[in-house]
């Protein structure tokens, strides 16, 4: 039994601004054990980013608490790193790749030798050993996202939060980056919370998948992924168990899209829906 490292209890977030209030997240409670890889999947606008920002201490929840290793989160914790969806906007364009990865380490007051070591190792781990002095905008999208991942890895966080990090890269790059995440997770023993709207991705990556309802958001299901630990794009994705799990999550998402959080209780006992097509995504249109 793993000890809960991250505890999210009754988190609710209502945005208020200029006469309009939006209840983005209604009531979320879950915990993540030390060293787990948990995926959060939910339809667009479900409040995934909102949740992640609350966990990262970038946003104050309206109600509820986030606890990291026993301490309440009320600002960005040292032990956490975030990789944002918009890689193009999360790297400092006026700094080289090396500068981007190194800056957080400078803030941590690490000495120069240690910084250099961490930067080198992190860039090597993501397969970018030869672009230290390039600027982010000289790199492809996939490479930029790798730099953002390297920056997070070099920071040596206990918890790594990732908000749809691969939504904007092409399919092949995406597959590579997914495998990169699994291998980094194995190597570093870091706890990862991975947000995505891609069902296949969530099942392929996670040990657990949390399915969110539409906004105002609650957790529809907390599903354990009992696929073998060694996963490969080709074999894992074509295994019957993968298809079953994916189908199951897909059904939940379909329900999630049509039922709001306040109807959640009744939905849980509703009979399963009919079967579905082969290729599955939460938002085929988006």
């Amino acid at each position, binding site marked *: 039994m793993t000890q809960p490292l991250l505890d999210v209890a009754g988190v609710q977030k209502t945005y208020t601004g200029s006469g309009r209030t939006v209840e983005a997240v209604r009531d979320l409670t879950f915990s993540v054990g030390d060293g787990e890889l948990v995926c959060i999947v939910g339809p667009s606008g479900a409040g995934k980013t909102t949740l992640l920002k609350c966990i990262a201490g*970038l946003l104050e929840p309206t109600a509820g608490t986030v606890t990291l290793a026993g301490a309440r989160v009320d600002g*960005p914790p040292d032990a956490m790193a975030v990789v944002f969806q918009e890689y193009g906007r*999360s790297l400092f364009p006026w700094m080289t790749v090396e500068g981007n990865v190194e*800056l957080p380490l400078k803030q941590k007051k690490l000495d120069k030798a240690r910084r250099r070591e961490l930067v080198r190792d992190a860039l090597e781990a993501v397969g970018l050993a030869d672009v230290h002095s390039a600027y982010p*905008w000289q790199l492809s999208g996939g490479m930029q996202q790798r730099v953002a991942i390297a920056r997070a890895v070099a920071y040596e966080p206990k918890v790594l939060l990732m908000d749809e990090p691969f939504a904007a890269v092409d399919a092949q790059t995406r597959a590579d980056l997914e495998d990169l995440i699994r291998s980094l997770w194995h190597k570093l023993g870091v706890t990862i919370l991975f947000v995505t709207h891609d069902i296949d991705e969530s099942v392929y990556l996670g040990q657990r998948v949390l399915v969110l309802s539409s906004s105002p958001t609650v957790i529809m299901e907390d599903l354990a992924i009992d696929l073998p630990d060694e996963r490969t794009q080709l074999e894992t994705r074509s295994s019957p168990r993968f298809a079953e799990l994916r189908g199951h999550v897909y059904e939940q998402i379909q329900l999630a899209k049509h039922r709001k959080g306040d109807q959640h209780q009744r939905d849980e006992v509703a009979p399963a829906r009919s079967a579905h097509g082969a290729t599955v995504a939460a938002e085929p249109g988006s």
Partner: protein
Amino acid sequence: MRGPVVDPVLRWGRTLGFALTLPVVLVTLWWVWSADSTNYYAPPLQTILTTFGDVWFSERLRADVLPSVTRLAIGYTGAVVLGVGLGVLLGANRTLRRVTEPVLEFFRAIPPPALIPILFLFAGIGDTAKVIVIVSGAVWPVLLNTVEGVRAVDDVLSDTSRSYGVTGLARLRHLVLPAASPQIVAGMRQALSISIILMVISEMFASTNGLGFSVIQFQRSFAIPEMWSGILLLGLLGFVLSLLFQLFERRSLRWYHGLRRSQRGEN
């Protein structure tokens, strides 16, 4: 891609050729047309150029050019420092911005030379007053551009900085100032030309030395070729400063131009 690949030296030469053609033509025309000029107020270019050497490569270099350039340097630097400093404060603080906005708009709307008589009343006619004139006119573009630049710092980048503990002074140095630098530099470019204008005007008003003072002095004593040479020197000064500024801009904003190019390439 535009046309075939040309080797860099050739291309550079061509750029230089384009840039120099018109000036050379104009100077030649001036030279030819003015060569036999008997108009007292428009002496031959040759006379002006000879005078130029005599007048400016002399004691005047120290007595007039140096004070002018010093005032300009101090005034301009003051405007930039003040503009960026206040701009960062206002850009980061909405309440402060709201309170000060109408006042700032008003002061900005006053043509800077109109302030000269008042400032000279209060600050005397010494160097300090002239520096104040330059600062009070040149600070606005820097200030307003900085405010805009600071306000427009990207949300994602801002969140990224916070989550990695880049806060306080480090945030200013690594996020806010670099992010606003394209706007700040644009403001600095405007401020430079305003500074030169105000340097000259303030010296024409009341002074005992300086380039503006000299030009007026020559005009009043009907030293016409000398007057022309002063104007020529001011033109050259402005030109050289703007070249230096371009060099500075290209170096300091290399990342920005690169980023823009790559964005245009993608879209």
